[in-house]
């Protein structure tokens, strides 16, 4: 029943920003079993970027580009998710990610329900399973979940039949953030080959870092990671990244883009750091450090920024900064993810070129 639903949705999903579309053709030589028509995602849920194949990521980037064009139109709404209900299930305070998802869902004409639970209600009261069963009893198709516990979205895939999108699960992954970071780079670079990205800051607690690492490695970029030794998790190098604890040394290796992570103030009180002042001096990106990026180097930040701690205002508002582009791209990427997971197809290479 789920499969046939997806088939139906796929048939009705008009490609955004495109006039026509070839009908889905069964693949002559299936790459996977069951065969997935070209342009569709192999993944059924977006739980993380670990293990997501290059083709899927490229399909999402290609589709995001199509949607980004929609966002520049006077009427910014397209119909593919009409009649479908998306629940935004947020167990953690989040303003920008929730708004970005909500707007993306509305731009796709989905019906949107927001469920916000306070952090304390995770510990007591109704269990996650019961909450989700209740919400799905109202016939919802997609659940976007933000939760402080790693693996909560994976649990939902066991407990429900809905399509699950991870909007951040503890320190595990934040795949749409990883994708929008990658889209922001890809928009400029068009290829990750030979590119080197530095992820900087509190790696231990960062879901953004993990999603960036997996996605960028899959797409063929080199990834360097840098942070205080207390905030670099065990065995990190085994993921295939270079690990630094000195940002100047890391920058000297030649960096095309630095993704500056937010440093949480509570890391100081829990003795990961002696002071934010010292962090800022050792790891903060200021103009002098930004100037040591490779020519055309980019500065990213997932937000919200602590200006003067991990990044100076001069850099955040400067030439190299693509921080506001990330926000706009987040909308396009989330539209692409929802559209593709609900059965839509990515544009083919020839369609992209015909633009």
């Amino acid at each position, binding site marked *: 029943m789920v499969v046939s639903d997806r088939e139906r949705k796929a048939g009705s999903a008009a490609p955004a920003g495109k006039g026509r579309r070839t009908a889905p053709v069964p693949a002559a030589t299936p790459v996977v079993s069951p065969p997935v028509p070209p342009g569709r995602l192999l993944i059924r849920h977006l739980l993380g970027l*670990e293990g997501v194949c290059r083709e899927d990521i490229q399909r999402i980037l290609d589709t995001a580009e199509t949607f980004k064009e929609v966002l520049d139109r006077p009427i910014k709404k397209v119909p593919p998710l009409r009649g479908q209900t998306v629940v935004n299930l947020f167990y953690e305070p989040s303003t920008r990610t929730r708004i970005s998802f909500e707007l993306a869902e509305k731009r796709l004409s989905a019906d949107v329900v927001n469920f916000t639970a306070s952090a304390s209600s*995770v*510990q007591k009261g109704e*269990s*996650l*399973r019961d909450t989700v069963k209740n919400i799905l009893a109202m016939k919802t198709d997609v659940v976007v979940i933000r*939760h*402080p*516990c*790693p*693996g*909560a979205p*994976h*649990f939902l*895939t*066991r407990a429900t039949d809905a399509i699950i999108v991870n909007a951040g*699960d*503890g*320190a*595990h*992954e934040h795949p749409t953030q990883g994708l929008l970071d990658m889209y922001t780079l890809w928009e400029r670079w068009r290829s990750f080959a030979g590119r080197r990205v530095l992820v900087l800051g509190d790696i231990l607690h960062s*879901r953004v870092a*993990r999603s960036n690492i997996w996605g960028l490695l899959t797409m063929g970029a080199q990834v360097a990671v840098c942070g205080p030794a207390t905030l670099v*998790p*065990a*065995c*990190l190098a*085994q*993921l295939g990244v270079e690990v630094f604890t000195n940002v100047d040394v890391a920058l000297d290796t030649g960096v095309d883009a630095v993704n500056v992570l937010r440093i949480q103030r509570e890391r100081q009180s829990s003795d990961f750091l002696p002071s934010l002042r010292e962090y800022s001096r050792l790891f903060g990106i200021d103009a002098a450090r930004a100037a040591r990026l490779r020519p055309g180097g980019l500065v990213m930040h997932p937000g919200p920024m602590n200006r003067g701690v991990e990044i100076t205002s001069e850099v955040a508002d400067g030439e190299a900064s693509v921080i506001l582009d990330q926000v706009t791209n987040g909308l396009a990427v989330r539209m692409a993810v929802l559209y593709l997971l609900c059965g839509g197809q990515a544009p083919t290479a020839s369609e992209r070129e015909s633009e």
Partner: protein
Amino acid sequence: MSNRSTFRAVAVIAGGRVIDPGSGFDGIADVIIDDKGKIERIERPGRDRRHDRSSGAVLDATGMIVAPGFVDLHTHLREPGREDEETVASGSAAGVRGGFTTLCCMPNTEPPIADQETVRFVLDRALAAPGRVHPVGAITRNREGKSLAEIAEMVAAGAVAFSDDGAPVASAGLLRRAMQYAHMFDVPIVEHCETPELSAQGVMHEGLISTKLGLRGIPAISEEICVARDIALARETGTHLHVAHVSTAGSVAIIRAAKAEGVHVTAEVTPHHLVLTDDWVARDFDPLYKVNPPLRTGDDVMALRQGLVDGTIDCIASDHAPHAEQEKDGEFDLAPFGVVGLETALGVCAKALIETGLADWPLLIDCLSRRPARVFNLPVGEIKPDAPADLVVIDPNEHWTVTPERLTSKSKNSPFYGWELTGLLRSTVVEGRLVHHANGDPGRVLPS
């Protein structure tokens, strides 16, 4: 009087391969049981047993292994407090199905087993249990880690060892006093070795997998520092320290060195730590793989197996920890630690040790019976005249698949569903009574 008298008496276990690690005996023999539930003698097989005793079954053990009943030094029976998860009776029933004729139950109940009334309560409940049950008392009052519990009173009531299980005694000063005090009664101090400030609310082993999953890690040194500290206290006080559920290669090395030096230290390992690694947590964040100490790496698993085989680790203990389904079916971070293990212990250990060629049946049986009995000074675990007739009959060639339906524990939080295990518990005898038999009525008469 225990309700064991309602079970059928056994007169003879005939024709099996009798393995008694205590005497080193390993051969085909008949075990004759007297009408007081004790072993009368072991003798050559083949005699017609029909008229030995007017009452009592004759179990045909041809093709089977006959061994001392298993002794578990580390069981959570949840009574009093969480009778929805397990009771003394239900846990003991699960135990005898897994071959455990003796269970030593940990004091992290509600209220904790931390005074003589609660020790007596558990022993009273044990009258309705098919197997033997010995309470382990808390080291500290109310298991709060602040002041000494009435250890002597609990010894008098029947506690066989002392532990604040679930947590170590965090204060080295208090643990030193506890060891000095316990030494007067010759009872072991059992430590759950963990350094709280190093575990820091961790939920799995700290390493590559915790890094991938973003779950808070419990580093190996959290255990090893506590093992080293406790061994230093055991060395100084001369008190017998028993290290519960050893999980790291580093701990094995520390214990090996301490034993070589003559410190009175013993140790146990769980079946799940002998076969599972932290990679299993990466399977969908399933809380069924959440245990404390956490599942470690492949290198740790190999060191634990080696430590058991070379005697550094004395015995296998289940750490049977029943949890209600709803508590183990949710977010990994929020689920309680622990898995049930009484009914799968034999097959899982056979997989870890026998199927790998590291050990033979006599050694595995020793680790499950005589060796743990000696650690807690319990008068069981051997097949010899006048010893209690606590025996198991194992079909070493029978395979079975673990399913929730096959487990009788009140809780079903096993990490081994779908595993095919070798070695089926055919019969379990406690005090000469047939408390478990896999295939219905065992019959009276031997085939001629």
